């Protein structure tokens, strides 16, 4: 009897770490922005591992952007990023397959960015064009994420996530990076050390255990 109980407990704990399904998704909002703005490429995808109540999440993407405001400045960035984290599915007992989540992420980015700029020095009375480069710098941050997904067709989901990003740390080289791949603006006057993000996902689900 005691032996059986021990066996059951062992079986339960092992199966708890086997996902019941996986979803693959692409960020449609980033693709739309990429299509609209010829200077911008932001492509982001994600994989979700369904543990019923909890969802393991891996997100990755690439980001390139050119902001041209010459003669004042021209800013170029090219980088990639990934985020890992976990979501709690608040609708895991729901009959339909909708998902409403709250979760956390840890993000890392690696990027090279360049700033060409003009300096007007009123004291010395000169105007000069200078440039600065951050080569392959890294950065890290955390995110609080809330998301919603609805099945719109067989195994096809539409969902969005809103993110509060904070705690950005990076090591600049020749200038303060204006953007961090996967994070956004590093700092504005009104928002120091935090920013908001938004994704609009199209996901495909593969389930090997019924919900």
């Amino acid at each position, binding site marked *: 009897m005691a032996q059986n109980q021990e066996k059951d407990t062992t079986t339960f704990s092992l199966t708890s770490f086997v996902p019941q399904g996986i979803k693959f998704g692409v960020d449609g909002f980033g693709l739309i922005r990429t299509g609209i703005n010829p200077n911008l490429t932001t492509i982001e995808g994600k994989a979700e591992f369904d543990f019923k109540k909890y969802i393991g999440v891996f997100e990755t993407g690439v980001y390139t952007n050119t902001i041209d405001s010459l003669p004042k400045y021209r800013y170029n960035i090219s980088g990639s990023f990934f985020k890992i984290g976990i979501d709690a599915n608040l609708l895991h007992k729901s009959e339909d397959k909708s998902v409403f989540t709250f979760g956390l992420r840890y993000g890392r980015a690696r990027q090279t960015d360049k700033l060409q700029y003009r300096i007007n020095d009123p004291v010395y009375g000169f105007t000069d064009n200078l440039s*600065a480069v951050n080569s392959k710098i890294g950065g890290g941050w955390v995110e609080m994420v809330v998301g919603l997904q609805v099945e719109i067709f067989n195994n096809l989901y539409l969902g969005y996530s809103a993110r509060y990003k904070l705690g950005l740390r990076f090591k600049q080289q020749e200038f303060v990076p204006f953007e961090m791949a996967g994070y956004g603006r590093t700092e504005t006057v009104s928002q120091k050390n935090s920013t908001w993000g938004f994704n609009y996902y199209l996901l495909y689900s593969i389930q090997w255990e019924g919900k």
Partner: protein
Amino acid sequence: MFLPLLFISCLEEPECVQLNNNYIKVSFKSATDGTVLPVLVDSVFSEEYIGNFYKGTDETDVYLPLSPVFQQMSFILQTPYKRDTVQVSYNYLPKLYGTQCEVSAMYQNVEITKISFDSLKINVDQIPPNVQVYY
């Protein structure tokens, strides 16, 4: 499902700032009682640029402007009493606050590397550091 798109345009409106930390302040004080002492400054100029910042005026403070082009500058202060040199080293860090802004100047690691005044006090707590000269 489509409502959040309405909020996107509200995110991250840019604002601009002009940082103003590119001066080394040199104050003149009395060696006897420490009070502010106006000194006739004949001229202040840097070795890197032609031109005087001050010309034959009584000053209690002079401001030595740093340039983003260099990482080290030397300033010559000429008073009726003597001719003194202040050498400053620093890092210039450009920063862009918003897409509509000019690039701002941030000076970091500002250090007085060489100074010829006889009696002085350097406030390193100040950014950039201030120099107090006692006559």
